[in-house]
């Protein structure tokens, strides 16, 4: 169990993360992206919790202390990664909530939640804006050229 088999558990987290990452990149639907982002983060949680496992270990709740008993009771899994991941889970749900709020707002103003459509709208906006300023610049240039012509 010391070879690749011993660390295969860490590979599944990579698989989950990558499924999530694929979703984030490949799916134009914003809700899908938000969900995929969640999967991506869950992969990391799995990594952390896997890190905490110890052979033959048990949950790190020390019942012996309550009993006042003296016997040793199997090794405990490492509580530190658990704590870190509790925090991370909270962070991920907060991020999800904010993302959803943004998506609702986007739906309200754009009428769609497909990223490619939104991007197209943004580009059109930008182009229109740019053209508006360009039109004026071009007009200025024309004016100057006409003036020059007039002088000549």
């Amino acid at each position: 169990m010391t070879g690749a088999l011993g660390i295969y558990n860490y590979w599944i987290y990579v698989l989950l993360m990558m499924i999530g990452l694929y979703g984030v990149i490949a799916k134009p639907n914003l809700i899908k992206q938000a969900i995929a982002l969640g999967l991506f983060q869950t992969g990391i949680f799995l990594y952390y919790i896997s890190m905490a496992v110890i052979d033959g270990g048990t949950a790190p709740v020390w019942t012996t202390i309550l009993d006042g008993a003296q016997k040793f009771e199997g090794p405990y899994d490492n509580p530190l990664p658990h704590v870190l991941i509790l925090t991370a889970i909270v962070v991920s749900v907060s991020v999800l909530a904010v993302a959803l709020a943004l998506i609702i707002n986007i739906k309200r103003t754009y009428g769609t939640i497909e990223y490619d459509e939104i991007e197209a709208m943004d580009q059109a906006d930008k182009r229109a804006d740019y053209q508006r300023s360009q039109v004026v610049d071009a007009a200025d240039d024309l004016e100057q050229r006409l003036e020059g012509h007039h002088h000549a």
Partner: protein
Amino acid sequence: MNAVVLIDTLLLLLVTVTAVAIIEVRSLYASAILTGIYSLLMALVWVNMHSMDVSFTEAAVGGGISTILLIGTLVHVGRDEKPIKKRLHVPALVFTALTGAALIYGTLDMPRFGDPAAPIHHYRVPEMMAQTVGFVNGTPGKQKPPEGFDVERYRRFDGRITGPIPDDPKDTAWRENSALRLEGLMVPQVHAAHEPHAEPGHHLHPPDDFNGHVPNSVTSLLAAYRGYDTMFETTVIFTAGVSLILLLRRPRREGYLQSGAVMSDQVILRVVSKLSIPFILIFGFYVITHGELGPGGGFQGGVVLATAFILYALIFGRAALYRVVPPPVSDILTGVGVLIYSGTGAVCMLLGGKFLDYSMLNRELPGDGESLGMTLVEYGVGITVSMVMLTIFNQLAEERST
């Protein structure tokens, strides 16, 4: 291959399949529901890995709140993904494959799964767990590390690892030579705690033994050692709530009260919910209060409390909920939780200790002070979490009624 690994493998297989389904299914509703299922499966995985608190949280958050949020959002944004012509996004696939390969490459030098010799198991955590709250030179404080405490012994799992422990996790040859046995490791020296009193600073203090009061080491880590992280975790939740108010709340003049769907005319629903809500609330408070003893804590309890309110709103309408918890009250309460937490820390500081040094709360029995502080902050977390969840629900629901 032990049982953990076996069950783990099966569960993870299921999880992976679910994950693929979540990404690939076209109905967003199905995707959202599958997310709930995914979370429940994950909760099982956590249980299998003995991470009860994470499991509880995953079930409450992933299976509960996240799914509610997603479905609440789908009501506004439509239920289906736009059909895409090409199902497989090749660049994304290549990119993720490369990234994944890099990550796996990084795991190659890791200690194997469950290796007790992994640095994380023997470097700091054993000492951390053996920390006590007592008197250092007559004043309350943490002993760093307590005198008379044999760090080396803990690092060696109470003498079960002999010979040198190498720093390089790749080096596994030593394990064959060591007399490592797996049973009976990593238990704090409770026998020391029950020895007769000695003068302060030289022995672990039985009545003030902090770990003695908090059997759930996850909670002690969460609320004490890394209590500062948890304070900000609460703040993250608070921030999310405030952000949602900022982004979604309608202007005040339009009023809060919008008639949502009311199901109170259905007798069974009404009766069952009326009966169960008190129990849900009690359970929530129980989880908050008893986080030190078993799995659970402020966060999980807060989510449970929130579900009671949400259930109430679903059955009796949000108008009824607003009569119980008016938005200004919930707004204020979201902050109150964070203030309880940070206030507890500040009081410790004002009493002359470091920020969040709970032992300042009871100078005679620092261990009790530690315990009191942890309980206080757990309540803080619980209040903020429940009120923020309620606020988020309200904001999403309010949006629907327009």
